[in-house]
């Protein structure tokens, strides 16, 4: 299976703090890959390095064979990005924002279909600042996929969603994969990673500490992914 994302020995620092410390992983094309980790593990920084927002202090990142910084203009039309928060003018209306981003692409998804699928119709004319957290999240997800990307990077895609909205996003992510889109998502939600992912990378302190399919990591479901995650990321006991 071709490789969509290749990260080799990535190091990213913010001043004195090392956010990502020699991280390496690959993502196979056409799969859903979850990057799982506690707060501050370096998940978002890793994904942002793939999106060209963070310049590596060392190491190598390739997305679809391209350097996210040097080949920024060539890469951006081919990927979709869901930011962890924000990403729209406070006064812009939800569907207006979606139509605007669609205009930047050659073959965007049908807006009416997307609005219906993600239940954005009821808030289509609402300014962004007045949207609920869940509506903002669904709009942000729609913005990430409207351009028919080859890869969708989704940073905590279901945070703040009610169970119905969460299940709907999960189903769209499955549909994306079935239609050949590579999905890379960061999440805290163990059930989300277990339900959706073909591959899970557990990140802690800026490094990948475990990788595998949910089946491998849970030893064929003898344990839950949450148990595995807690074991892997447990703080050492004080002596």
């Amino acid at each position, binding site marked *: 299976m071709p490789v969509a994302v290749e990260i080799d020995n990535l190091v990213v620092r913010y001043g004195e703090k090392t956010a990502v410390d020699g991280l390496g992983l690959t993502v196979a094309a056409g799969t859903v890959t979850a990057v799982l980790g506690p707060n501050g593990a370096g998940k978002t920084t890793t994904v942002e390095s793939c999106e060209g927002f963070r310049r590596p202090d060392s190491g190598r990142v390739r997305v679809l064979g391209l350097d996210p910084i040097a080949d920024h203009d060539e890469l951006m039309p081919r990927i979709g990005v869901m930011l962890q928060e924000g990403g729209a003018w406070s006064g812009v209306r939800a569907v207006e924002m979606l139509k605007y981003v669609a205009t930047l692409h050659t*073959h965007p998804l049908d807006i009416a279909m997307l609005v219906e699928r993600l239940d954005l119709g009821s808030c289509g004319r609402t300014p962004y600042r007045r949207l609920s957290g869940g509506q903002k999240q669904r709009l942000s997800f729609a913005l990430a996929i409207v351009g028919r990307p080859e890869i969708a990077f989704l940073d905590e895609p279901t945070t703040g969603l009610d169970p119905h909205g969460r299940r709907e996003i999960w189903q769209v992510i499955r549909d994306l994969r079935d239609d050949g889109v590579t999905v890379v998502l960061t999440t805290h939600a163990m059930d989300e990673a277990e339900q959706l992912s073909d591959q899970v990378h557990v990140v802690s302190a800026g490094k990948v500490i475990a990788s595998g399919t949910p089946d491998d990591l849970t030893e064929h479901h003898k344990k839950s992914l949450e148990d595995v995650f807690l074991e892997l990321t447990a703080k050492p006991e004080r002596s």
Partner: protein
Amino acid sequence: MSSYAPQPGSAPWPRKVLAHSRMEFKLLVRNGEQLLLALVIPLGILLLLGATGLGDRLPLGTGRPIDQAVPRVLALAILSSSFTSLAIATGFERRYGVIKRLGASPLSRTGLLAGKIGAVLIVQLIQLAVLMGTGLALGWKPVGGVEAVVGVILTVLCGTAAFASLGLLMAGVLRAEATLAAANLLYLLLLVGGAIMTPVDEYPSGMQSVVRLLPSAALANGLANSTVEGVIPWAAALSLALWAGVLGYLVSRTFRWD
């Protein structure tokens, strides 16, 4: 073909720029504070100077007060749309993650900047139409024919490039709230001390050599020279182009998507 199958691609550059200009213009029209800066304040000053006799008492320059007031108020309007409004809007776009969102889209850096300038130029067309129309109604008599028109267009374009670069630089290096404060402060300082409403020659002799170098002085004098004397103000345009070159270079060095 299934519904989400990848079919990526960037729209043609002109379409992206047009879409971005249209979006920024629509958002500006919905924003009362921006409209106040861009239109209400310059229009109010023009009415005060041209319709109340206040222009006769202030040192606007030689000749009929309304003939001096109109180009200087135009300069103030250009300053507000190309610098103050743009800096504040861009600062908050960065705060709200809009710049980051656009950085992960096919828009590109040149598309973003061109789209922003396009929106500013649309606003300026409206500013010029309203203020010149009001000026004519108040008795403004511009001279110079084609040369005056060329002079105004050249000065507006060079001034927009210089002040837009200053606004983008400020929004790129300061936090949104600091940009808001600094852009408004600079607007007021240039209004009072930047030879916008008062010619450089009216300033104390010790200040004149410094004030003359400011882009605000070049903008106001360029517009006044165009419509009062009917000439193409090459020196003012060159000064503004130099400011644009230096500030534009700094913008290119400091611009970031997040």
